[in-house]
């Protein structure tokens, strides 16, 4: 069914593309939002990716890989948006993250704000990796193919991204504890 739609859209059938795009938007928008954390940027990224999907669809060699190809264009679009955004903002120095020293317990107690702050500190590529694997449930080989990196690199970057998030949350917790106890942060 989808292959038929893709092949029709490759031949210039805009109605077929509309059907594909309608389905794709509902899958891509949450991904873009999670990576970019900005509704306007997310909408722009999705729209730019899907315009490119329409424009370049005839060059897609294998119609059965439409979903993976679309995700790949979206991730690239998100990274482009993130870099564009960064160029238009003041750089904020982020100090090196100390390694976690507190035994884990975070699974149960970290709150959303802490997760949000820790996630926001990651590079867009690392955020994309985490979203593809932990939100979309994509197997790591598919995540690697989507980002365009070898599987081993994807594994190590995913591990490092989560470790950095964890470390940032622990650092937050230490600062809060210090403030609670009256010590200067």
């Amino acid at each position, binding site marked *: 069914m989808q292959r038929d739609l893709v092949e029709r859209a490759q031949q210039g059938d805009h109605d077929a593309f509309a059907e594909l795009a309608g389905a794709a938007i509902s899958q891509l*928008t949450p991904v873009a939002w999670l990576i970019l954390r900005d*509704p306007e940027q997310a909408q722009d990224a999705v729209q730019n990716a899907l315009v490119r999907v329409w424009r*370049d669809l*005839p*060059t897609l*060699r294998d119609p059965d890989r439409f979903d993976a190809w679309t995700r790949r264009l979206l991730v690239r679009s998100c990274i482009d948006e993130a870099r564009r955004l960064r160029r238009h903002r003041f750089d904020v120095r982020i100090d090196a993250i100390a390694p976690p020293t507190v035994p*884990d317990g975070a699974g149960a107690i970290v709150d959303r704000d802490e997760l949000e702050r820790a996630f926001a500190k990651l590079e867009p590529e690392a955020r994309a990796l985490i979203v593809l694997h932990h939100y979309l449930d994509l197997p790591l080989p598919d995540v690697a193919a989507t980002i365009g990196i070898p*599987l*081993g*690199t994807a594994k190590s970057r995913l591990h490092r991204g989560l470790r950095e998030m964890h470390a940032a949350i622990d650092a937050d917790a230490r600062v809060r504890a210090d403030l609670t106890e009256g010590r200067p942060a």
Partner: protein
Amino acid sequence: MTAHDGFDRTVTAWLRDEAVPTFPDQLDALLVRTATTPQRRWWSSPERWLPMDTTLRPRLFYSPRASQVLLVAAIILALLGAALLYAGTHQPHLPAPFGPARNGLLYTSVDGDIYAVDPVTLAKHLVVGGSTFDFGPTFSRDGTKLSFARGAPSDCGKPDCGLMLMIANIDGSDARPITPGLLMLDGSDWSPDGSQIAIDSAYPGRSGHVLMIVNTDGSGMRTLDVGRPIHEMSWLPPDGKEIVFRGEQLDLRRDPPVGIWAINVATGKLRKISVRPAHSDNDYQCVAVSPDGTQVTYRDDGDPGGFQQHIIDLQTGDDSILPGPKGQFCGGFSPDGTKLALIRGIPPDKFQFSVVTLDGSRPAIGLGPLVGMGSDGPSMNNWSWTPDGTGILANYDAENEAMLLPIDGSPPVVLIHGGMALPGEQRLAP
């Protein structure tokens, strides 16, 4: 359960809570934009510049009278005799089909026309022009013929009528199609004797490509079906009896794991070249053969830690990894077989050509600009060595340029600027 598992689950749960549904009017806004956005032609990505389908060229038959047959036969015999006499006294000196040769004419396509370009003065003159869209000039191995792709006339009743593979004299004259307008032709390779061109074209009813052989006299084409999709084919030196190709695994249920094979063009007999099991369906890519036909090179699937270039010795079956840092891939042998040109990844997202000596006698050198991604992979693609092995000719997709990169460290030369800028150079006898 580990502490890390717990944090993984926390992140997963948080992401799912955070995900928002679509924004209102998103689809409408998109469709307004796409309604006025033209689609690229499928062949307009240099990454896949020659697609077509497997329809055999229809042959026209008629029944001539006996007197006509005799007359034509007599004329042909007379012409043949004259040609043999001429050839006996004026035998041109042609290059061997593989190995180093002297550089000849340098052609490049740009924006649908084909030009001859002087790599020193950059003066150019039109070879194939007009209203047709022509690109991808490729010389026969003896340097006496030219092939290229042409957008087929748009009278097939479909939005895209595909491409025709064209053949012409060196000066662009007598250009004629040797295939009908076809979809999904991704590459071509001249046979050693110039009588045939191997192409990979769409697999009927399936994803991917089949291997096809086109007769350069325009007498037809045939499929060498190996029962699975193939890609990256090249005639195996020195005799060209076999064609080496990558067997693809596009349908995980039907296709066997990826690997490298050779097929005997006359008998269809298959021979496996790759020696170790594939790590994944991304393994065994960028297949290329050495000029003496004793080695095949490919890149692996990059795990762990980055792509590595391999070389298979066809005599011993040994599969060795090219020494050097990971992240080098898609190598091509120099005409004398002593060097490999590769693309090297430069973190985080740049690429550059690199040339290495196979015996490790000299350090690798970087060539040309650092570039990013093109339409489907690194910006540089459709590249080749110059016949004399002193440079690399490359299309830079995202930059819309054809460049000559001397390997002696001289500055790169931008040959031409424009869309589908694909260069090719004639081989002459040394």
